């Protein structure tokens, strides 16, 4: 077959057809194998000028991808065919992720603020000037208040720990990580030493899902669930106050009241133990409590109590508990929904009891440990600085900075947009705008987010298509290593993170005398990547980095089979996962057992056994029960983090976030579908439209996050024809002329008061609100908050944390 580019062969297609002759030749040459299960991307690779392998930037699970290029630009992306989990499939966000690279609103040059902070006026400066200014600021901060006054506020880290190395090189421990699955991760970590579970959905017979919208947020898991349901008739039961896509397509949707999942799980575990359905041998051998002790402990969590708190009938909880314990193998999944409350860590620990007491751990179709591929840090490794004494959780950082409890000299912001997506977003803005609290701020960013807009210097970062880093999934039965390499030419003066950090270090340490330079001793980031990759045992023998670049993720498990739709091994047999990982080396805890009794919690003065306490964030003031709702928030398949908010296709599909409210509750207040409503929390109110629906619990209202931007880009702001003068001249006529929607949503985080989970320090994402019809004069999108009240919540949190 001749080598043709994608556009070329679209043209050929068009031209052949246009010539009038129905192209029988093409038809005769068709050789699609059965079913569409088999398709061969290697052949695309031949057809298309250039193809490369990478790993998608979004989602927790990461997706290995194959991308296709034209003129140095990625034009489309597909999943990696032989990947055992995705089998070539990719989620909505992954399919369009590459558009970020060519986004006309990208930051392409180093920018320096003009005028006051937040005025959003910028001057282009050279990299040299930018680096010099940053180095100077770091030097001044270090001289005045010590290295720890250099702060990093980041979202997800890049995979090879460049930031950690950078901060350690400077001698600073001051890292604030803003992700809202802290409760989940802490609960997992404390219990069995890992931060995430791997549910073996494809082989399960019964699947309990607490507060995850996994059909939209974990696409690889969703694929496995679909397999389990289709091939094993697995039953999927979803607990969620709102009928998410997952809940709506489950076999059973259980509309649980927010914050009560932990108690429901404890009551279920209690039922299972009482009914003699528990695997006592497993509990006695593999956990640090005896079955007898656990049974005694659990007996306090009655079905009646669970019914009262969760709103689910005791009989239903009992039935599901018994089904779960008898239908084996069974597995559990949970995510941010269940755990982003002040009782998040407890909740996660309670949920984990279900697979544990039924002995569904590390069995086929059960609840498994992650299988990881690890690599070594590039030598030499900078020493870890002494941790700070104040013990500031990420959630409290802005308050600590404002009140001077921590000293901030320079603040680096990377890959997180707290001014929009964190709880108490207005307070974050207030603090970041305050030059006393944050004297100097550097944002390393791809877009001018609400947070970057408050910086003094904005540095243009590379996207995943323009960087070098190893990536491995945290949650897979078949561990793999993929790499991101530079597959597309970076536009403008964009540089990749590692290079930026290296250059700052080199500017700080021109002669190498403070000894920083040696930790950053590389010319080309590929050098660094090779070192990471080469440290992995066996990989080198399989061809190392070059093999991954040429053939996709390592190891090579086999090839996708057209007939079965499964990846088969070299002998043509279905891949078999290995189970019973814990039998080799135990669990990754100090005791090598599952720590149902958690010593470190006890030391913090918290109950060491899994318990349930009412979520503080959902406590309703006495006498206010009537008219109060629990407000919850969620994500959709078309947002990823909230990084996708300037992607035209995703925003077209999903651009507003009207407030879900149950029809009965709404009707009682004379609110009809589409009416303007005012939602008030203790810190302020916003005005949005009511989505009157049957698909949410009557005592709960919900809004999706990630909407209502005033920054990021033209699509996000919904100002398709207003180009800021500092962006490149590039235009997308499609955005300019065809953007049709008139509603960009409202950001609920503006009225989200700060609550945090004691054990994990992670912020809660739900709170109590009142709902009323909009008052005269209210306009859609109105937001009114009181920063002083926001601050009061921080003060409060300081006391209980």
């Amino acid at each position, binding site marked *: 077959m001749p080598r043709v580019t994608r556009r070329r062969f679209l043209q050929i297609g068009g031209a052949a057809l246009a010539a009038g002759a129905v192209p029988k030749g093409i038809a005769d040459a068709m050789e699609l*194998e059965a079913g569409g299960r*088999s398709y061969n991307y290697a052949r695309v690779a031949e057809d298309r000028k250039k193809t490369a392998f990478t790993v998608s930037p979004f989602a927790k699970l990461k997706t290995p991808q194959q991308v296709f290029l034209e003129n140095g630009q990625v034009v489309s992306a597909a999943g990696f065919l032989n990947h055992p989990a995705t089998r070539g499939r990719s989620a909505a966000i992954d399919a369009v992720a590459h558009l970020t690279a060519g986004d006309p609103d990208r930051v392409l040059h180093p920018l320096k603020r003009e005028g006051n902070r937040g005025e959003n006026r910028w001057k282009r400066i050279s990299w040299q000037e930018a680096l010099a200014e940053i180095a100077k600021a770091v030097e001044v901060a270090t001289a005045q208040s010590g290295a720890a006054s250099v702060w990093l506020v980041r979202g997800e880290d890049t995979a090879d720990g460049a930031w950690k190395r950078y901060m350690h090189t400077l001698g600073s421990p001051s890292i604030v990580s803003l992700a809202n699955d802290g409760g989940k991760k802490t609960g997992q970590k404390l219990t069995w030493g890992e931060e995430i579970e791997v549910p073996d959905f494809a082989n399960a017979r019964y699947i309990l899902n607490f507060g995850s919208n996994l059909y939209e947020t974990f696409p690889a898991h969703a694929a496995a669930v*679909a397999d389990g349901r*289709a091939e094993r008739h697995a039953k999927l039961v979803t607990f969620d106050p709102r009928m998410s896509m997952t809940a709506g397509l489950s076999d059973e949707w259980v509309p649980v009241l927010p914050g009560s999942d932990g108690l429901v799980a404890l009551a279920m575990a209690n039922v299972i133990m009482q009914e003699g359905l528990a695997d006592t041998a497993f509990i006695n051998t593999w956990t640090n409590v005896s079955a007898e002790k656990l049974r005694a402990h659990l007996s306090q969590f009655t079905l009646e109590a669970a019914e009262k708190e969760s709103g689910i009938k005791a009989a239903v909880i009992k039935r599901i508990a018994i089904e779960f314990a008898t239908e084996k193998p069974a597995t559990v999944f949970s995510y941010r929904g269940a755990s982003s409350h002040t009782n998040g860590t407890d909740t996660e620990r309670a949920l984990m009891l279900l697979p544990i007491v039924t002995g569904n751990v590390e069995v086929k179709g059960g609840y498994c440990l992650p299988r990881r591929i690890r690599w070594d840090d590039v030598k030499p490794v900078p020493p870890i600085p002494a941790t700070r004494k104040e013990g500031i959780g990420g959630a409290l950082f802005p308050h600590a900075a404002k009140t001077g409890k921590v000293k901030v000299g320079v603040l680096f912001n990377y890959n997180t947009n707290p001014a929009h997506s964190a709880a108490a977003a207005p307070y974050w803005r207030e603090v970041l705008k305050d030059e006393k609290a944050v004297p100097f701020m550097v944002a390393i960013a791809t877009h001018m987010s609400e947070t970057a807009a408050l910086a003094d210097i904005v540095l243009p970062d590379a996207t995943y298509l323009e960087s070098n880093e190893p990536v491995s999934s945290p949650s897979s039965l078949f561990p793999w290593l993929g790499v991101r390499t530079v597959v597309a030419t970076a536009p403008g003066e964009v540089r990749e993170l590692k290079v930026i950090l290296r250059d700052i270090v080199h500017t700080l340490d021109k002669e190498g005398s403070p000894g920083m330079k040696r930790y950053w001793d590389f010319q080309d980031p590929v050098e660094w990547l090779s070192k990471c990759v080469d440290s992995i045992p066996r990989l080198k023998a399989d061809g190392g980095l070059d093999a991954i670049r040429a053939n996709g993720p390592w190891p090579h498990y086999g090839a996708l089979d057209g007939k079965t739709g499964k990846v088969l091994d070299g002998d043509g047999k279905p891949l078999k996962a290995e189970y019973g990982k814990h039998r080799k080396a135990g669990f990754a805890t100090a005791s090598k057992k599952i720590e149902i009794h958690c010593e470190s919690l006890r030391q913090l003065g918290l109950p060491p056994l899994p318990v349930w306490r009412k979520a503080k964030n959902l406590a309703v003031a006495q006498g206010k029960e009537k008219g109060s709702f629990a407000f919850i928030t969620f994500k959709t398949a078309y947002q990823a983090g909230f990084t996708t908010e300037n992607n035209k296709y995703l925003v*077209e599909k999903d651009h507003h976030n009207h407030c879900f409210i149950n029809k009965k509750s709404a009707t009682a207040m004379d609110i009809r579908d589409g009416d303007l409503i005012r939602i008030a929390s203790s810190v302020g109110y916003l005005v949005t439209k009511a989505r009157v629906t049957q*698909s949410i619990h009557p005592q709960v209202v919900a809004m999706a996050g990630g909407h209502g931007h005033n920054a990021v880009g033209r699509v996000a702001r919904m100002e398709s024809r207003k180009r800021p003068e500092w962006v490149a001249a590039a235009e997308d006529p*499609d955005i300019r002329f065809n953007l*049709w929607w008139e509603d960009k949503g409202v950001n609920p985080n503006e009225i989200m008061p700060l609550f945090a989970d004691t054990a994990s320090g992670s912020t809660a994402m739900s709170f109590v609100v009142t709902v009323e019809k909009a008052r005269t004069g209210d306009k859609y999108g109105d937001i009114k908050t009181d920063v002083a009240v926001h601050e009061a919540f921080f003060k409060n949190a300081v006391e209980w944390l």
Partner: protein
Amino acid sequence: MSSRSYGLQEPPSLGVAGRKRYAMVVDLRRCTGCGACAMACKVEFDLPLGVWRIWLKEENRGEFPNVRKVVVPTLCNHCDYPICVRNCPTESTYKHADGFVLIRPNRCIGCRACIVACPYNARHLLPAARTDAQKPTSITDKCSFCIHRVSRGLAPACVASCTARAMIFGDLNDPESEVATLLLKENVSVLRPDMGTAPQVYYIGLDHGGVTDPIACYTDRSVALKDDFNAFKRNHNGLSFGDIVEGENETSALGFTRQVAGHLKDFIVDIFEKIGWVSRH
């Protein structure tokens, strides 16, 4: 099935040895409503905003707490008796012997007779501006069953990205193919069978109500969906001088007159633009 003449149509290859006969089966029992199909298709063809070759229909059905979701991905059905083909005056759109209903972009005049003809709303007119200026504009477009991929041994882009493997594509003439076995084994149905089009996109687990019923699609819309559609009607640039925006005042006698006058004005401006006297772009 008796054979009917529906205009420009190659002799059908169904059952002809050695020939291909493509069809799609969508297994709604597997579909997770993830939307990957729609996004993959948008990028594959660099589709402009406001048009879709495949889209998700989504419905909430029932009363709390007995509610569930119904999700149906919809695309051109590559009908065996395509009314669109029959009504195209320029022979621009035609039925390929191997099953595809295709458009010859160079022949299409953008008269939209085929759009009116299609009972499934599967066709759209491409707007005059798009990201890649090399690609067709102002002509009718729709799902092509990805013939450019299929003819090279690849599954259609939507099928290839379907995370839950709910979409199956293949050759009905091959009894071994998964589509052929599914058609035999499963209870399949098609959208609007009463239209006499013999659709070749088959669904497993489809029910004929709600979102698959054209009237319910109108009467049971959420207000948000209706408002979005109205915004779309106001703002899209798509040679449609008759989109009636609904609303109490908008469809009163005065409001209606205003809308009609507005459309006429748009049409006249459009004429000037086509002649090249003015440019809104």
